[in-house]
């Protein structure tokens, strides 16, 4: 299991490679990327802030719980912090499993729980000059 908060660009394919074992028939790779709009406003860039030590601990806890309840193999999660441009990868989740159903549902559960439980925050900078911390899940 691998959980990382990083200021460096994420290489999703590296995560997918590192989780695969010979017993796995499926590797699901989810990537979240920075989009150029939110609620009708043009977004220019995003800044992510994290309570890093706790974020890693909560991520590990989530991955352990997901592994206990799904028939999956290894899991790797990486989340960016700092300023990101449109199109950059903000989060990547790789899940390997013997069969695809478990990999899909585990991947889905990890991203949904990450958005609700992991202490990470996002500030949008808009093309019209404003900037706001987002408060909630989308």
């Amino acid at each position, binding site marked *: 299991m691998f959980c990382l908060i990083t200021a460096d660009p994420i290489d999703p394919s590296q995560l997918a490679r590192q989780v695969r074992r010979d017993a796995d028939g499926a590797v699901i790779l989810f990537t*979240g990327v920075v989009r150029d709009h939110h609620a009708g406003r043009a977004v220019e860039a995003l800044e*992510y*802030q*994290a*309570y890093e*030590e*706790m*974020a890693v*601990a909560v991520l590990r806890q989530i991955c352990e719980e997901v592994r206990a309840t799904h028939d999956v193999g290894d899991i790797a999660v990486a*989340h960016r912090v700092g300023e990101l441009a449109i199109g950059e990868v*903000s*989060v990547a989740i790789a899940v390997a499993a013997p069969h695809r159903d478990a990999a899909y549902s585990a991947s889905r559960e990890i*991203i949904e729980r*990450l*958005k*609700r*439980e*992991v*202490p*990470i*925050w*996002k*500030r949008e900078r808009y093309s019209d000059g404003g900037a706001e*911390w*987002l*408060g*909630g*899940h989308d």
Partner: protein
Amino acid sequence: MRVKCLFFATYRDVAGAAELELELPENSTVSALVRHLRAQFATSALPTSPVVAVNQVYASLDTVLGDGDEVAFIPPVAGG
């Protein structure tokens, strides 16, 4: 006793700092710390019942604090 407070995102803007060391009476609860901070910042931007973590674990407002504890104030999270 001394506790270390950590602020993130909107709360960091309110506190004007990422970290703050505070002297509190022995056996103070998280609630007492929140009241202290709301008075110090003279703001309602820090809610009366914020989500907090004590030593990196989510904790309730009636948690009793100890010397050297790290209390993080966690505004609504928005990772992903």
